């Protein structure tokens, strides 16, 4: 293996050196193409990268991935430096630029919440002994579901944070129905979301109350339904790799794994959401505002495809003045429990077989509960 690794590492570093000197698209091409080019340009600066690289490469046993990763790291730094020259390229294509901006913004905006989520989930995985959490909850799972829903109040994040945490809870021996209730409730009923709802709707507390009640009820009902009818065997968790020496190493391993996993799927969802955002002007929605039933279904589906963070969706709901309040409530109740980005993350964390059954269940319950609560409270 060694003779094969050596030239590749040298390649990668030389590619990196070239990358720093070349602006524009040529940069990425040179970076990705470097493993195929002859290893002639190794110079003194490459040596500093090569040493640790070769060492870890041979020990970890993944030679094909080391080169690209080093190139990537170098290229990224270089790209930041040449970005002004590339900006003009994007500006000539308005739709592409808008798509890029929305795509990047969804990813960037999710980042702090995702990090919060994976740090908490790694802490649960590493610091909380297996099954300890289960002992704190009521023995009767049907009673534990509402408790899990209410405990969602304490997580001040959006849905990106709650997916890895729910995954971690299941790994720690919490029954899926209970963890899923938490997953659905947390992004919708935490204080940050409730305050932003109050601000968006100009202090209308009845709307805040309706949102809280409807979201909590949705989470609890879905939890109970899953408890009774769901098949937990559908859940397939990604393998963990926790053979580490210390708690710190285990913590870092968990956090990194969850971050990459949930984050990768989040990007899939962001791609869809950005495309919808640019391709479907929001003014089109106005033409769909019909009677109450139609409006509710339209806004519920809209919530799924636009994937707006639960901390901001109230502002969008408030701006949809052509729609009845109950339909806008449905938008705010469905959004945090199911959207393309969240669905994608659920596929990644719990497996496809689970997600394709759980998503329709969530959608139907959320729409029904939001409609009922809206008709009573608003």
């Amino acid at each position, binding site marked *: 293996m060694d003779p094969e690794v050596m030239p590749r590492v040298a390649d990668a570093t030389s590619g990196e050196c070239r990358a720093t000197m070349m602006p524009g698209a040529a940069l990425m091409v040179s970076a990705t193409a470097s493993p195929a080019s002859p290893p002639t340009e190794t110079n003194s600066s490459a040596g500093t990268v090569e040493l640790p690289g070769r060492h870890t490469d041979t020990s970890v046993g993944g030679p094909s991935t080391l080169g690209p990763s080093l190139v990537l790291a170098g290229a990224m730094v270089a790209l930041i430096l040449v970005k002004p020259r*590339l900006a003009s390229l994007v500006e000539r294509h308005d739709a592409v630029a808008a798509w890029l901006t929305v795509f990047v913004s969804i990813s960037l905006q999710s980042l702090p919440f995702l990090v919060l989520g994976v740090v908490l989930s790694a802490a649960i995985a590493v610091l909380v002994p297996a099954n300890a959490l289960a002992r704190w909850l009521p023995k009767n799972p049907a009673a534990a579901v509402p408790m899990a829903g209410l405990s969602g109040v304490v997580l001040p994040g959006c849905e990106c944070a709650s997916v890895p945490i729910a995954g971690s809870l299941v790994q720690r021996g919490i029954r899926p129905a209970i963890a899923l209730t938490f997953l659905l409730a947390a992004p919708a009923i935490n204080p940050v979301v409730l305050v932003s709802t109050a601000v968006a709707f100009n202090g209308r507390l009845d709307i805040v109350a309706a949102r809280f009640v409807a979201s909590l009820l949705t989470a609890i009902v879905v939890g109970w339904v899953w408890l009774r009818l769901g098949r937990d065997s559908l859940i*397939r968790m990604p393998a*963990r790799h926790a053979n580490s020496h210390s708690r710190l190493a285990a913590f870092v*391993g968990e956090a990194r794994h969850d971050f990459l996993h949930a984050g*990768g799927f989040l990007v899939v969802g962001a791609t869809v959401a950005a495309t919808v955002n640019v391709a479907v002007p929001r003014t089109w929605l106005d033409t769909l505002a019909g009677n109450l039933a139609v409006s509710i279904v339209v806004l519920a589906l809209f919530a799924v495809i636009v994937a707006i963070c639960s901390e901001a969706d109230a*502002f969008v709901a408030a*701006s949809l003045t052509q729609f009845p309040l109950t339909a806008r409530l449905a938008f705010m109740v469905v959004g945090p429990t199911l959207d393309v980005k969240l669905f994608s993350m659920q596929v990644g964390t719990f497996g496809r077989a689970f997600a394709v059954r759980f998503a329709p269940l969530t959608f139907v319950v959320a729409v029904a509960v939001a409609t009922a609560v809206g008709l009573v409270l608003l």
Partner: protein
Amino acid sequence: VNRLTQSVIVSVVGLVSGLATVNGLFLNFVKPTLQWPLLVASAVLVAIGVYGALVESADDTPAEARTPQRGDEPGHTDQDVSIDQVSRDAVAPGSSGAAEPLPHHEFVTQTPHTHAGGPRIAWLLVVPFVLMGVAAPPPLGAFSAQQDSGLVTTVDSAYDGIPPLPASSAPVALTLSEYSARAVYDQNKTLQGRTVRLTGFVSGRKGGQGWVLTRIALSCCAADAYAVKVDVKGGQRLPDNTWLDVIGSWVPTPGSADTDNPGLPIVRIQTMTQVPMPRNPYE
């Protein structure tokens, strides 16, 4: 994706988002209030990545060496690793009690997917951040504004408690949102007889001639952006996305009493100056 690459990906994401936050690029995508959360998140990611790359990979050498066959074969697929192997992994030498990875519950099935526990989908995470670094996407502008009515509609009922503007003879600087609220919904007509200063960019009027002074507003990030538009009287039509400082006065919108469907607010331009894009392009 081996562990070193995972660590590099995490560091790159942290580094790029950190740099973008420091140099102000992040303002093209999210609200300024996310500055500190982003900086903290970036620092955590860089720390995780660097720790993983430097400490852990050296740390793990013995464990890795003892399970050499895992993933070394070329052409192995995600599903190749048997549950058996994963269980062996899970109890590999060196795992401490606290890091015991899996309670073996009957309902949770493991899906082993890559040779070092790292998901291949991780590569996708790099994409938005590479794109951000490479293309430095511009803030949303006239293109997005044209997809939106531009009316400020976040107020459910008409404003009646709008405080008076500060007493001064100089033009009072207002955001377009604030101007719109006062121009369309304000029962006290606080704009009457005042000179205002508005900053925005040029975008085309919907379905017609002329242009409107425009600003994109965010609630959280560019995905929930909406346009705020102020119609203009006077002033020369400049190309789309030209940033302007406009000094002018309020003109009541005809029929604005109908709060269900008010027209755009209007400003009569006295002077307008071309200005560079503000550091934060959004409201």
